[in-house]
């Protein structure tokens, strides 16, 4: 495996459960097992693509990493330090180093604050520069993301979706973070604008040595952006591999189902898709996780064992992991 540098972020069996209120509509209390035991690491030169559909828990995982939620269980190490139970004093320092770009540019900028005020906030919170230097730093941030300084005095409503997202990226970069989480940063944008934002993100990745955890549902995008791809289903990772290998030989039936469902635009891509795996049934919700392998109700090749025992993650090759009974016991 290509050397991707040191491990910046390491997750071990991270879980995030949300207690269900014992209300009138539920017979019993229970848990929404949004993230149910996720293990992976992200290295310095990585762009890890975390792919999944709704209910997979990918966004919840991202939010847990930036402490919007507190992890229910598991261990998170960042830059070598265990931050799972980080205390309030250290939290601010941590927030400086890990930032997130949210998915909807329309609501990630406060409509009542100018761009300058929005970008000034991270600088002020972390006491970076002061006064005049701050303003020139903001102008610098804007130019890094390709926006002219004139935009400082504008309100978000005057900007297009792509421009708003650039501001969101600038805001995330303001504290000079060591790690960036991108939650569907281009899903809400037109396809002709997506390319520009993604290109910008790739340039920043190279220039600032910034690893990314790229959360998305768009596998075609990851084919061209990610160094490694991980598929999440109902709170767990089902397959993870370096990009080329992942697309050349998708192992997990769910991965094959996803890949074969993508509406592509060229004939060459059609030939690259795995044989059509008809997807059946609904995407289940993390409230009612099926027993055994959580994918078994929808799996076209399920075996008896799949409804009983949850498979462990294997390593198919050095870096290609898959969690499926089809591949267990083949080592």
């Amino acid at each position, binding site marked *: 495996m290509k050397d991707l540098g040191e491990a910046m972020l390491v997750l071990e069996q991270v879980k995030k459960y949300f207690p269900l209120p014992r209300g009138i509509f539920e017979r019993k209390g229970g848990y929404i097992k949004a993230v149910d035991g996720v293990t992976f690491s992200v290295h310095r030169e990585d762009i890890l693509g975390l792919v999944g559909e709704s209910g997979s828990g990918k966004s919840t995982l991202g939010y847990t990493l930036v402490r*919007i939620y507190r992890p229910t269980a598991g261990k998170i190490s960042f830059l070598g330090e265990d931050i799972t139970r980080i205390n309030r004093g250290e*939290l601010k320092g941590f927030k*400086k180093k890990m930032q997130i770009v949210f998915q909807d540019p329309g609501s*990630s900028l*406060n409509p009542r604050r100018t761009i300058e005020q929005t970008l000034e906030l991270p600088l002020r919170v972390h006491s970076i520069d002061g006064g005049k230097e701050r303003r020139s730093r903001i102008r610098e941030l804007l130019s890094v993301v390709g926006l002219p300084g004139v935009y400082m005095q504008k309100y978000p409503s005057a900007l297009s979706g792509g421009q708003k997202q650039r501001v*969101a990226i600038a805001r995330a970069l303001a504290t000079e973070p060591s790690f960036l989480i991108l939650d569907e940063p281009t899903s809400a944008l037109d396809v002709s604008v997506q390319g520009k934002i993604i290109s910008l993100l790739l340039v920043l990745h190279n220039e600032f040595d910034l690893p990314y955890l790229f959360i998305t549902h768009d596998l075609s995008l990851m084919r061209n952006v990610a160094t490694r791809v991980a598929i999440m289903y109902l709170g767990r990772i089902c397959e993870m591999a370096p990009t080329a290998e992942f697309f050349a030989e998708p192992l997990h039936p769910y991965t094959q189902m996803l890949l074969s469902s993508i509406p592509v635009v060229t004939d060459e891509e059609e030939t690259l898709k795995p044989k059509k795996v008809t997807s059946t049934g609904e995407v289940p919700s993390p409230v009612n996780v099926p027993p055994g392998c959580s994918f078994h109700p929808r799996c076209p090749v399920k075996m008896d064992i799949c409804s009983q025992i949850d498979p462990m993650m294997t390593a198919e090759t050095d870096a290609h992991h898959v969690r499926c009974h089809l591949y267990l016991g083949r080592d």
Partner: protein
Amino acid sequence: MEENEYRGFLARNRERIGKGWHKFSRNPLSIVGLTAVLLIIFLAVFAPYIAPYPKHAGKFVDFAEASQPPSWKHPFGTDVVGRDVLSRILFGYRFSLVMAVIVLALVVPPGVVLGLIAGYLKGKWIDTVIMRITDIFLSIPPLVLALAIASVLTPNLFNSMIAVSLMWWPWYCRLVYGITSSLRNEFFVQAADVIGAGKGHILLREILPNCISPISTKMSLDVGWVILLGAALSFVGLGVQPPKPGLGTMVSDGMKYLPDQWWTAVFPAIAILIVVLAFNLLGDGLRDLLTAEEV
């Protein structure tokens, strides 16, 4: 160079304000309300200079001129003690407006702050405590509460303001609570949190600016209600005390002389009607303007 120039709030929002005014001015009733409000404020502020008989607003007696019907000399007539009704109404507006301003000044800040805190910390104990206290105040019929408080304290304008304030603040708390608890899940609020901003910043600089519109609308509609409530208190003798010219007091006094000397009660009543209606129209106009911002 333009980008170096720090443009103040008005300059930045010039287009928005222009667009807003254009929309506001399309509704004739809003313009009527705005004009009437400005006129009333003007009259109240300059009452000592405009009123034909400024001295009649205080201790004044002239039985020769008492109970005169409306005439050129006294356009609204004189009351039973000989005081010019028009002049007293103008001074009465002063009391009404002062009451409205002070009550809102007392009521809005604590209501808003408590609403912000309760809304942002929704689900925690502090939310429950604040909102249950709010509920308690809201469950008592407003006039009853105001009367109870006002009768315990010495009856005068100031104490009636206290009474009205105590029953008014929960509405602002609730209003802001609702907005805050829905806004706190918005990405821009989460983003501020992820950046590391403290709760104070989030409440005052991220959430509060998004509440200004509904708060302003409510305030302008409330002015009318506060004035009405103040007049009601004065009417039962718990507000502005004679010989001061509170509008409610004047109606109460004049009532005894209906229907013969109708002008002593009717004109003050109409004056109340006008000021409440004016602020309501203005408030409605503001609400239509601010709630239908985007097409």
